[in-house]
């Protein structure tokens, strides 16, 4: 029986294992050093905030693995001997594989800041990071202030976490406005406002210079490039993540920033594959980055690779880009591509609507000549994924999208609708006279039927 060994029990590795089990009878082993069982990394913040217990972040009950004959090994892979198909495990016996899947995820970036390895300085990625934070910042008495370095998704999550325990937070953001490398300015500006509403000391265009140590080797303050020294006992380093592949340095597996893979997710070594955050495509797919540290792409790679390994070679072909996030109380969804002013092409034009009072806004990107719909960002309004997926496939125009926007509305029942206001603004700006069509179940279901 073929032995499939997976390094990493995150979403990519576990999805691969589950689908290989669905498709075959192969022997499956997952090796992880992080936790005994798979958990949802994205939910770690909710454990600290007391919304959930750690066990709630585990999508499968503990009996699931044995029942599905997925062997779990807790151990750290030191080296890979690909000539003999052997994994050397720290303090444990070797494991022999027939096919190997590398799904080791990411680690927080550190950019060589002085003091970056002091006590109290940490990222927020792993279960261990959560445990460390619980120790470093149990309450506002122990942690009188925290400084977070890096204005991305993890940074704002960490700020929200610490604020839930009333810990004062200073948030250093390199950009001139939060996440404006990704978001258009209107949205980025709205989040700036929202961050301040949550009493977070937001410092834009501010970089970390160094972290100062106390006599015990713990962080006691940071120095910014504006010359400020900020006293703090916890420093969150959240300036992005990079593939967790140090142990592969001399393995003979081709590495870039991540493990180099082709569209079949194969590395340069036969029978070794890489998926998830640690995989790097030779060629970026569409507008996607070569390394995509996103939950659902890890899952899709796992599904895809399971097909290949079970005798149905299948290329990784992610469909239209989509994603979502939550910034404090603001829900964000995106479908298709909406680039920020900093990165968008000349052809990409934006239509932006923002609610007069509430923190709700919509940005639609379209081609300035053809009016083709390119993508949408929504804040405070939920949208239907399959509708936008279809509109992108069918290359609809922005005016079509606006006309049928009610079909895509996904907020709970009784929520206010904004289609009229959105259209009014578009009509006003463009001299058009589009009126919103009523929601139609027929049209909504046409999508899923085409899909099924």
């Amino acid at each position: 029986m073929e032995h499939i060994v997976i390094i990493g029990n995150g979403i990519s590795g576990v999805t691969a294992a589950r689908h290989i089990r669905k498709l075959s009878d192969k022997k499956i082993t997952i090796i992880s050093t992080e936790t005994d069982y798979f958990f949802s990394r994205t939910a770690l913040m909710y454990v600290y905030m007391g919304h959930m217990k750690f066990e709630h972040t585990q999508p499968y009950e503990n009996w699931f693995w044995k029942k599905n004959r997925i062997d779990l090994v807790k151990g750290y892979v030191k080296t890979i001997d690909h000539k003999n198909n052997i994994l050397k495990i720290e303090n444990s016996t070797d494991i022999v594989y027939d096919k190997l899947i590398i799904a080791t995820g990411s680690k927080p970036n550190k950019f060589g800041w002085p003091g970056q390895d002091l006590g109290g300085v940490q990222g927020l990625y792993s279960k261990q990071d959560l445990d460390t934070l619980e120790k470093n910042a149990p309450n506002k008495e122990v942690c009188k202030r925290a400084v977070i370095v890096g204005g991305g998704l993890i940074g704002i999550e960490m700020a929200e976490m610490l604020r839930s325990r009333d810990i004062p937070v200073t948030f250093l953001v390199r950009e001139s406005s939060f996440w404006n490398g990704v978001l258009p300015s209107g949205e980025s500006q709205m989040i700036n406002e929202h961050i301040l509403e949550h009493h977070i000391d937001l410092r834009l265009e501010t970089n970390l210079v160094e972290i100062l140590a106390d006599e015990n080797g713990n962080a006691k303050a940071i120095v910014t490039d504006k010359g400020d020294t900020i006293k703090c006992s916890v420093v969150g380093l959240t300036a992005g993540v990079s593939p967790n592949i140090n142990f592969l340095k001399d393995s003979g597996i081709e590495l870039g920033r991540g493990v180099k893979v082709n569209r079949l997710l194969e590395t340069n070594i036969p029978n070794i594959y890489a998926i998830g955050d640690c995989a790097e495509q030779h060629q970026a797919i569409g507008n996607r980055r070569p390394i995509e540290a996103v939950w659902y792409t890890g899952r899709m790679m796992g599904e895809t690779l399971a097909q290949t390994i079970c005798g149905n070679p299948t290329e990784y072909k992610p469909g239209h880009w989509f994603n979502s996030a939550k910034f404090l109380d603001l829900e964000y969804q995106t479908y298709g591509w909406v680039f920020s002013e900093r990165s968008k092409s000349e052809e990409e034009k934006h239509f932006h609507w923002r609610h007069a009072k509430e923190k709700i806004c919509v940005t639609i990107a379209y081609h300035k000549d053809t009016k083709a719909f390119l993508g949408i960002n929504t804040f405070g309004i939920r949208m239907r994924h399959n509708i936008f997926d279809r509109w992108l496939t069918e290359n609809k125009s922005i005016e079509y999208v606006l006309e049928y926007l009610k079909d895509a509305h996904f907020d709970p029942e009784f929520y206010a609708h904004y289609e009229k206001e959105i259209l009014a603004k578009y009509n006003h700006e463009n001299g058009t006279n589009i009126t919103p069509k009523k929601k139609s179940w027929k049209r909504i279901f046409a999508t899923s039927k085409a899909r099924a």
Partner: protein
Amino acid sequence: MMKTIQNIGITIFLVGFGIFAALPFLGNFKLDEKNFEELITNQGIKSEIFIQDLKSKIVGKDFSGITSLAPIVETTINDANKVHSKNKEWGKKVYAGSDDFATAIRKKSGYGFIPENKGLMWFLTFGLGIIGALMFILPQVVTLGKKGIKNDHIYHQSSTNKGWIAWLVFIFLVSFYLVLYFKSEYAVNWTYLVDPISQSLSGNLAGHWFVYGFMYCVVMTVMAIRMYIKYRHNMYQIVRTTSVLFFQIVFAFLIPEIMVRLQLSYSKGYDFKNAFPLDYDFFFSWNLKELISSGGLGLFILVWGILLTVVIVPVMVYFFGKRWYCSWVCGCGGLAETLGDPYRQHSSKSLFSWKVERWLIHGVLLFALVMTGFTLYGFFAETGTVLGIKVQSIMNTYSFLIGAIFAGVIGTGFYPIFGNRVWCRFGCPLAAYLGFVQRFKSRFRITTNGGQCISCGNCSTYCEQGIDVRAYAQKGENIVRSSCVGCGVCSAVCPRGVLKLENGPEEGRINPTEVLLGNDVDLMELVNKK
């Protein structure tokens, strides 16, 4: 500032609550001869032995609140009945229940501060409780911060994480229900507090079930205010809470009382929304006889009750899911969604619990149906014994095990430990019936939004019915489960906008997916073709 108001609020609440909890054991009772005679007449007692014996034991004597009268009544009944049985004086035997009799004695004979200061005592219990609770709840408009999901520290706090506060609440609730169902004589002091309210509504003095009904409405109203604040960003929660509050106060509480006041032919009042088999005694012989003999109104209620169960309920479930009943109308659901909301996360999501749930809830439905079959047969055949089994004993067993212990003591008493829907999930026969309709013939579903799920687990954690919502959402599957009561909280707590409760075409409602939306179409076709 807000914290101070909240702390004062808690103190005031605890004072009111403490007085309320102490009342069963306070006060004095002394039955005079006139009241005794009245009681004997009201209860229709014909046994001189019993009357003489009880009179000598009770009349003119002082009893403190803590002494139970029920054992005295019980021995008196037993002694009298022994003699009557021996003498074959069947007509003289006493059939009154000792607990009810003891309660009646107490109600008639209380004296002293409590019954003489009903208004003041109401204020010191209910009044302080309400004021204190509101002082704790209202500042949350500020303390919770910006509107949004505010579940911070639920698993850090003793009250919501099965700590000592939760266990104290559990002990109080269980004791409270035990008193109500089995030791109502101890509830008599509570009835004095609400006598004026009862009299203004029905014209009668309050019994312990009136206390319960009134308290139910008060607790739901106060906790509904908490819901309005907590979910002030969520119109679905606001509308639903308002609906469930309206049906409790108007249909379950006010209309039955007003029916009594109007002295309508059907004299005991009727909750028009309470559908069989949750209303399990609707088809009991005595109720049918009463309905049939009560003229037009009785017949209307009979027809309405049958229509409600056979037509209205399933048709509504077809269009809207069982939520229209369970989390928009039902009283049990109403309490669960208000008082029980802080405990919703305690429902077990294990596969094992789901198995237990299916056996139990369908077992109770079967029990209710079989019992009803027996009572109907007994009613039409005019017999008390069917297939050699006494119908009354089946009815008593159901009333005790399901009606009192399961629905009351466990159903609500266990809120702080097993979550707020123990009864609705494991026991309610109506929920089981609606569940069948919802699962097999309904337009309702919780739609999963393509591939947006990040498996965080908030939906599953906060599902009061113990549904592992995430198990469906992370596969891109819609949630179509018989037990879902459509409270909408999974959708509310989802950080990624993945879930939406909606009513749509039946076709495509259940959508098993091999591969999630997001992967390229080619791959999906490939997989689906297999």
